[in-house]
């Protein structure tokens, strides 16, 4: 490194003021990011924080609305990934871009510009061998990609980028498909890249690996850079808190009524994923009537599975779920809904409503089997229409008419349709997943008001949120999840924000966790 900073070489990558707007959202708001040669720069952020958009812009998949990208000091503008590759940028995407039916060698040959027309893979072995040697990747060139493990496929992707001469590598959630041992090997290779003077952008929402390999860390939230830390000065708890937000919105907790009897009891719940991996394990907690229990955690730590199991969208592998002292584990969506389980789903546009149907239809779906909307097997559209007009008026849904196609509404109004449908009755259990995600202040307040009203009416409310402030504002108790396990059930009145952060990062409360991978508990800075 030259001693004189001012005359030193410009950084490998310099993104300045990069802004990208989509209808209704600013995905990247004046984001700055620089990567020096020999540096690993981590981008940390929740789903929807703008990480993917930034990568898409850097890789030429999307054009920024404003801002500048410089490589080695020269301004560049990419129209497609071809341009980015030509500028020596390599992307190892979360979902691999490989032809599964072809061999590793064929996939590599496909990615190279100078591949001969005949016998495309002939000279490849000689070129791959030194690279594989240097980075400690052994690859079976003649194996079909479809037969490789995800870790091996990822190594093929990395080799592809290196063969293309990439100087800047973007690793997008690289460890999401890896075993801990494979992750170790990947990070060993990253060390080699650093030593060779390449730059690496590491996208992740896992604190432990970021702390382990990054030199600098940039935290994105809501499309903005909210913090930038040198590796030495970063702290897992602080980063977790920064990621999920410390907005200045100061809501006071209102006077909650005294909670009633236990309505929802979860005991030793276990849910396995498609490959038999545990998504939830040993989860036990209660929710009382008249109580809001918040679920905190970094995305992907079991919150989605918890909401799905409670609402019948996913079957539990083992364990008990009791609602008002009746066993409800494994019941289907329809039966659970009839027993008073309502659900504000995470993906409101895809799951919560049928976008191409009318507002009136969406206001009765799920309730369309009940009086007065159903008359035997027929539907009473007059009742549906009257109900829709009522709901539109009472919830101030900004729809031109009840016949409006739902997908033309704004996000806030789509959510109002869902809230009107789910929260108009007297449910026993309300499962709300990220109910205010992406909503404006007024719609957020309204959502909170409706959730509180249900609590006051005696419902058990389970609120899953990535917004810590929202949880602290609304919840009476907070359950923290890390890797599918409960790392704490905390009283919201006396909780310490940093403590929640540490539990979200798995650094407190998970020491008895037998499945904890190496590196999790060990990293303290």
């Amino acid at each position: 490194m030259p001693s004189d900073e001012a005359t030193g070489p410009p950084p490998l990558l310099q993104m300045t003021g990069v802004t990208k707007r989509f209808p209704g959202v600013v995905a990247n708001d004046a984001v700055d990011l620089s990567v020096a040669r020999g540096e690993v720069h981590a981008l940390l952020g929740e789903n929807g924080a703008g990480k993917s958009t930034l990568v898409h812009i850097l890789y030429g998949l999307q054009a920024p609305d404003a801002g500048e990208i410089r490589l080695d000091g020269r301004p560049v503008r990419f129209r497609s990934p071809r341009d980015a590759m030509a500028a020596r940028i390599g992307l190892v995407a979360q979902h691999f871009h490989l032809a599964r039916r072809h061999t590793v060698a064929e996939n590599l040959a496909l990615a190279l510009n100078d591949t001969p027309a005949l016998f495309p893979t002939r000279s490849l072995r000689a070129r791959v061998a030194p690279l594989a040697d240097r980075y400690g990747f052994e690859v079976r060139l003649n194996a079909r990609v479809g037969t490789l493990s995800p870790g091996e496929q990822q190594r093929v992707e990395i080799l592809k980028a290196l063969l293309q001469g990439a100087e800047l590598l973007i690793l997008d959630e690289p460890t999401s498909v890896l075993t801990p041992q494979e992750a170790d090997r990947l990070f060993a290779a990253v060390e080699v890249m650093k030593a060779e003077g390449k730059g690496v952008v590491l996208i992740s929402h896992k604190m432990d690996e970021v702390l382990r390999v990054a030199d600098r860390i940039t935290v994105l939230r809501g499309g903005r850079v909210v913090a930038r830390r040198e590796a030495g000065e970063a702290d897992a708890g602080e980063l977790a808190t920064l990621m999920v937000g410390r907005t200045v919105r100061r809501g006071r907790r209102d006077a909650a009524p005294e909670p009633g009897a236990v309505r929802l009891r979860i005991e030793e719940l276990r849910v396995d994923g498609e490959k038999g991996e545990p998504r939830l394990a040993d989860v036990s907690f209660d929710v009382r009537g008249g109580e809001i229990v918040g679920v905190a955690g970094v995305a992907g730590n079991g919150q989605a599975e918890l909401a799905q199991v409670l609402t019948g969208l996913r079957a539990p592998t083992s364990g008990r779920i009791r609602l008002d002292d009746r066993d409800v584990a494994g019941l289907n969506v329809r039966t659970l809904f009839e027993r008073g389980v309502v659900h504000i789903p995470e993906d409101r546009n895809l799951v919560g409503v049928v976008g191409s149907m009318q507002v009136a239809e969406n206001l009765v779906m799920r309730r369309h089997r009940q009086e007065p909307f159903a008359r035997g097997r027929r539907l009473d559209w007059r009742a549906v229409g009257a109900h829709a007009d009522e709901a539109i008026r009472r919830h101030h849904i900004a729809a031109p008419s009840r016949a409006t196609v739902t997908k033309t509404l704004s996000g806030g109004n789509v959510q109002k349709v869902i809230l009107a449908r789910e929260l108009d009755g007297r449910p026993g259990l309300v499962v709300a997943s990220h109910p205010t995600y992406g909503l404006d202040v007024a719609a957020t307040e309204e959502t909170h008001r409706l959730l509180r009203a249900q609590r006051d009416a005696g419902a058990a409310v389970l609120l899953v949120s990535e917004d810590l402030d929202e949880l602290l504002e609304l919840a009476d108790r907070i359950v923290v999840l890390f890797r599918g396990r409960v790392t704490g059930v905390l009283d919201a009145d006396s909780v310490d924000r940093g403590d929640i952060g540490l539990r979200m990062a798995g650094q407190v409360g998970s020491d008895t966790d037998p499945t904890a991978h190496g590196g999790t508990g060990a990293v303290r800075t």
Partner: protein
Amino acid sequence: MSGPDVSEARPVRTVWKLERRAHAGPALAWGASIGAVVVAMALTGALFAAFGVDPLDALRRIVDRTLLDARGLSEVARRSIPLMLAGVGLTLAFRARFWNIGAEGQLLAGAIAASGVALFSGLPAPLLLPAMFLAALVAGAAWGLGPALLKVRLGVNEIITTLMLNYVAIYLVRWLINGPWKGTSLSGFAYSDPFEQAARLPTWAATRLHWPTLAVAIALAIAVAWLLARTRFGFEVRMLGASPEAARYAGVDFFKTTVALVAVSAGAAGLAGFGEAAGIHHRLVDPNSLSPGYGYTAIIVALLARRNPLAALVTALFLGWVAAAGDVMQVALRLPSQIVGVTQGLVLLCILAAEPVLRYRLARVEVPLAPPGADGRTAEGSAR
């Protein structure tokens, strides 16, 4: 290499850009269907010209002999009947995104069942036609149920299974008329014995228009429209087709709903087979004579009708007219018989080509030109 001066005002250029539409209204959707038909007709006209036939003159003569002539008109109507039955059934399946390509096989299964009852049941005369009707309905539904079960239980693609079962049905008919059901009255020909009079559908005056089946087709279209619009079942079918994830969240039973709607859809095609056997041929004949691809044409009927059962009556009449016009083309214009298939294909192609019109619109947008130095280097460097 010194960069160019970037301080001057950036020029702007206007470009055409495809934009996604938020939502295509019904007027646009119908416009697209009508546009597709017009374009297909124009292309067919060009084909006529290539054969040395004046397209306008040909159209006049076709209209003369199909629409302005009582007998021609009855031919259009009777060819529309199987298209209506199978097409209306397909609108229901397509609404739920069950892509049933097997109406042809379901139609043949219905014809086999109806013929079996007519030839071998020995039922008293007044019961014969109702029994044939029921048998065709059940057989058609059964032919569709296999693919439906495979889809909901094992996730097997219904496009492949329904399509393949068409060939099974075709060869089953061939085997029957060459083997066990081969007629004794006309030796040397591959078809079954003729049905007795009580097993034949009445026709309109001296035409081949078996009107009871036409009445059934119209009633079915009204019933399916009512089912879709007015019942819980129809609402769930529409949810399933519009968003499977939301349907699951709404508690729609994927298994029951799919099986029920496929039974209705395939049963309707079975009824079309009943109509052809009992109304036209009065015996089980070669599959190519029994159905010149009605089951496939019905797909076009359903898509052109934008999956609306009542509109399928109209589009079935249109494609029935195309089929009837084919006879005129062959006889009066000496064009090859394949021209009907070509016209149908063009209609389908044009419908599919019109889909992007519904999803996108062309808009003129202004984009700032990038500073040439920043832009040119990488973009042009990699382009060549």
